[in-house]
């Protein structure tokens, strides 16, 4: 079984995340970049299946700037058998539509039986890529899974919906997205890091995938304005000496909050 796990490099949420006020793009010099935690969890779902099923072949797939090789290597060090890194200058500022088209083309080329993604990325917070991929590929999709069971020809699990949770299942091929209820990824050990250096890492361009970034080819979503909100300032801070509750009530009353 061929499993493609979609991993994404994002600005580290622990650091200062900045957008350029000129281009609206993430300012990569502002802070560290990391593999998005949710995509490491997606990788763990694939690897725990591969642990028990020797026919499973796990490929990490990402679309990211050429400078993101370290993140791709991390996915290999955690345990993916191979990686595909789509990097192309024409993809700078790609919207969701172009991103999905490119990722779908790479998955089609690799012939995946199962695609595993995070439910929501911490930078874009789009949460739409998995469904977009399913539509491109003509696969069934099962999103927001908090439990996952993979068999040779199907995938099932519990889907978190806004109203509650529901059991879902789909025959393969399928796209699933997982939530942070699933476990963290295993930590890359020394052996994994060394092995990663020898694993296949394929770098693809748009031309390799036969995808056009031509703005006339399809409607795109573009940024038309951007502004930065001033950071919040701290207000009063008191130390409780027995009357803090009363002082808080006074504050709430003054501000008409009770």
């Amino acid at each position, binding site marked *: 079984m061929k499993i493609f796990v979609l991993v994404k490099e994002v600005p580290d949420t622990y650091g200062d*995340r900045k*957008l350029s006020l000129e281009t609206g793009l993430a300012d990569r010099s502002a802070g560290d970049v990391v593999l998005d935690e949710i995509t490491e969890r997606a990788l763990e779902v694939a690897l725990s299946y591969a642990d028990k099923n020797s026919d499973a072949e796990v490929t990490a797939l990402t679309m990211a700037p050429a400078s993101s090789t370290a993140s791709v290597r991390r996915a290999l060090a955690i345990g993916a058998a191979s990686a595909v890194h789509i990097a192309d200058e024409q993809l700078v500022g790609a919207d969701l539509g172009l991103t999905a088209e490119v990722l779908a083309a790479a998955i089609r080329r690799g012939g995946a039986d199962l695609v595993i993604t995070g439910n929501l990325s*911490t930078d874009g917070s*789009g949460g739409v890529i998995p469904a977009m991929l399913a539509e491109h590929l003509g696969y069934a999709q099962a999103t927001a899974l908090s439990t996952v069971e993979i068999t040779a020809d199907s995938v099932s699990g519990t889907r978190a919906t806004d109203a509650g949770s529901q059991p879902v*299942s789909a025959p393969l091929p399928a796209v699933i997205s997982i939530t942070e209820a699933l476990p963290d990824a295993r930590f890359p050990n020394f052996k994994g890091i060394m092995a990663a250096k020898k694993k296949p890492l394929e770098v693809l361009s748009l031309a390799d995938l036969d995808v056009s970034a031509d703005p006339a080819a399809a409607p795109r*979503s573009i940024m038309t304005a951007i502004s930065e909100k001033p950071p919040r300032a701290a207000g009063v801070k008191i130390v*409780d000496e027995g009357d803090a509750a009363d002082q*808080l009530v006074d504050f709430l009353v003054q501000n008409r*909050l009770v």
Partner: protein
Amino acid sequence: MSYPENSILVLVDVDPSGAAAGSTAALIGAASTVGTPVALVVGGSQAAVDAAAAAGASVVLTADADATALTVPIVDALQAAAARVRSDAVLISNSITGRDVAGRFAVRTKSALCVDAIGVSRDDEGIIAHHSVYGGSYLVDAAPTFGTPVITVRQGAVDARGEAVGSPVVEALEVTPSGAPAATAGPVEAVEVASSRPELRGATRVVAGGRGLASKEKFVLVEQLADALGAAVGASRAAVDAGYIPQSHQVGQTGVSVSPQLYVALGISGAIQHRAGMQTSKTIVAINKDADAPIFEVADFGIVGDVFSVVPQLIAALEARKK
């Protein structure tokens, strides 16, 4: 039939009972700020149709759907509706179901997709989506290069409301199934018993608790203060991970984003990922026994103290005021 020139097609989220979801009024409200809302109700009851009209839809399209097939039947119905109405934009709730439908629909119809908008507006060239990015640190506008945009709208973010329509035109849609493979979905089970507390999304007051509450039993204190204030209950990811409360209450980066009038953080350190979901609140109150907790950097009123002594006193004082 013909539809208004400036139609905005709105997909109403339908809950498992067939009723219109809580997002409906704001979604149709947002549509009414930029055009004439035309609602689509898929697999909903008469009550859902009535709710769409009450929220401001003058035309309500309806379609049946096989509830055991995930997402695809709704996309098929939306495709049929969009082909008829030829609206200026398609608005969908940024719910889990809504995002799935929006993603598939945008690919199928080759439309530009804008997600998680907190509002929409119109200029000479068409509809613009407004976004709040990186936990509210940036405001970003986006628009399609051409064509009809598909926009998902953040739940609880839009205050505008449409004017109720007394006798809407209700039209049943003919839908040709696309035959796209779909997952099979079972019945939805509610994660928690229905409560009379306000919904977290869109709540005007939120009381949230973190790991500082120390146990599921003691987390009840958060609920008691919430009830004394008429507030919704929120939580940090650490509180959710520890099993104090279901995930649907998580506030932050990977949880719900809220902007209430009042946000009270109890025993929450204020990690950057938590602040990303609440720092746009009008007034923030924090109680934490660590004077250096980062939550104080964004608090309008901070108390360095023990939640187990301050909060019971606070509840008593609030109850005393009500008498």
